[in-house]
């Protein structure tokens, strides 16, 4: 079976800096990849290239049959790649619902005709979306579901991360990219978030997830396979247990590589 996502030789240069160095990474349907690496190793850059925010310098990117190399962010988004951001990006003065709706807009009817005249159609889509958003947020925190029409800015940082995850999930993506979703959370909160994610996962067995995470416990629990980046290069790929034992990974993390 061919993988869902296949990147080969993916390279991203910023002037003289090679942030991604000929990466070969593939992700299968329903697979969860733990992506780790020291600060500045290129994890976020990998996501930014995958989602079309940066134009890669070289390589190939394929999502099933679709060629996504150097496509625009919006084409890639519509192809079913959704993400969260390391630094939360929500519209803080809009409601939680409006923020989550953004995740579904790519597949909704956005014609002026239905906004202005065919309101019946719009209302049907709206109430469906409200139901979906309610069900999704309830799963991560019932308090969010109960306050779906409060401004996103009135929630704690942790809830904002949950809202961002819901926004990424509401459009039923094929590939979900999570960039340090547990940053700033306590161990318990992180554990709860991962439980929620795994529970959600049961219902969408085909959803592939790439998770950037510094907490090794989390990586151990959730990932089927781990990939380690260092200076933009893939230095390890395999199961978690092998990662712990790997010499090169240890030196990269202990700073021995410098």
């Amino acid at each position, binding site marked *: 079976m061919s993988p869902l996502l296949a990147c080969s030789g993916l390279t991203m240069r910023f002037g003289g800096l090679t942030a991604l160095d000929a990466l070969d990474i593939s992700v299968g349907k329903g697979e969860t990849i733990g992506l780790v690496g020291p600060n500045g190793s290129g994890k976020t850059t990998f996501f930014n290239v995958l*989602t*079309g*925010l940066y134009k890669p310098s070289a390589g190939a990117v394929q999502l099933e049959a679709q060629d996504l190399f150097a496509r*625009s*962010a*919006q084409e*890639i*988004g*519509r192809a079913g790649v*959704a*993400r969260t*951001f390391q630094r939360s*990006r*929500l*519209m803080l*003065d*809009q*409601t939680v*619902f*409006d923020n989550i*709706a*953004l*995740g579904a*807009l*790519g*597949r*909704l*009817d*956005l014609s*002026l005709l*239905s*906004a*202005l005249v065919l*309101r019946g159609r*719009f*209302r049907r*889509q*709206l*109430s469906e979306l*409200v139901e979906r958003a309610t069900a999704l947020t309830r799963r991560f925190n019932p308090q969010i579901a109960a306050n*779906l*029409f409060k*401004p996103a800015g009135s929630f704690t940082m942790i809830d904002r991360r949950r809202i961002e995850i819901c*926004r990424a999930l509401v*459009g039923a993506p094929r590939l979900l990219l999570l960039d340090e979703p547990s940053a700033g959370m306590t161990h318990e909160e992180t554990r709860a978030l991962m439980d929620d994610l795994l529970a959600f996962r049961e219902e969408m067995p085909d959803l592939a997830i790439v998770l950037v995470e510094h907490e090794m416990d989390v990586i151990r629990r959730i990932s089927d396979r781990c990939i380690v980046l260092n200076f933009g290069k893939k230095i390890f790929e395999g199961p978690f247990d092998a990662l712990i034992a790997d010499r090169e990974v240890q030196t990269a993390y202990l700073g021995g590589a410098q």
Partner: protein
Amino acid sequence: MSMADLAPSLPADTARTGGLARLAVAATVALLFAGGGFLLHAEQQGQVIALLAAFVAVFALAEKVPVGRRIVGLCRAHPGTVNLTAALSILAIAAALREEHYTLLMMATVALFATAAAGLTLQMAFAGVPNFAGAAFFAVGAYVAALLGHTGIPHLLVLLIAGLAAAVLGLVLLLPVLRTRGHYAALVTIAFGLLLRAFLEVNDVLGGPQGMKVKSFSLFGLDFSRVTEIGPYDVSFYLPYALASCALFALAFFLVRRLETSFVGVALDAVRSDEVAASVFGLSIARWKATAFLLGNAMIGVAGALYGMMNGFVNPNSANFGDSLIMLSILVLGGLGNLWGAVVAAVVILVIPEKLQAIQEFRLIIFALLVIAILRFRPSGLMPRAVRDFSALVKGGSR
């Protein structure tokens, strides 16, 4: 008595407080419009100053005292009542002042500038596309009215064509505006306004610096400039203009509100507040900015056409930068994204300087102080835009 005993009486109770709330909303809106009507009509400086003081007090207290906050909240919760009361109040003011040329002219001017502000709202408040050439697009509408007004094309159609022409001319600007950002995009529109004005001044077909005459508006054979009575009442010929201008504003208001309370509104807000997030979730930044820019210019063009027909002439000076700034001030002073705010701000900016004529040398100082005071104490404008709340639509709200 247990909670269960109380429960059945709840619906009736909320229905009653709902009726009471609506009444309070209607009374507030009617009172505000009555004040506005008096201000439009007031001639003595004393009256004007008193009304201004009342106006400042109302807006200063609206969010400071609990009653004020309560009423503001109620108005936000009952937009249908607000709009209906506003429409009726406007009709009542027009009826009461039916013979007053100058007052009606001001009323029409306020409505048309508020309509232009509705176009700018789409562009700047929703999509985040700056437009410092509002007056230029307004003038384009008026020039189209001048060119087509006497050709026998029905004037409603002329208004539509004027809107189209403004939108099409805006296309020239589209690429540079989409490619640049923030201050640079603003500069592009300023340059466009200056260029257009220079072009109008040297173009003989369009009357050069003298400009052109514009035929008065006629609707289904009724020439507005010849209206002197309606039924048994003598009226000013500005009355039909005032009514038509208000109707045009109502239409613009309807369009903008509908867009705002739809997924298009969410898309526009997303494009303005975070282009990165918007594009990652599949929105085309260019498409939405272009849509808002073109639609907005069309609205400004239609308003400009009716304005030209009412004044009977248009010249290159109509496209001056100062008037573009006035339109922007209306937007900002009213509260970006709130169209009723734009109406109040249009009254402040267009009417108050006229009303202070008698104290010539002081009037601009008073006016400037007023504007500065408003923005000092209400930095997001007189009536900041409310957070969009779709829950009203889902729970079977009326709109």
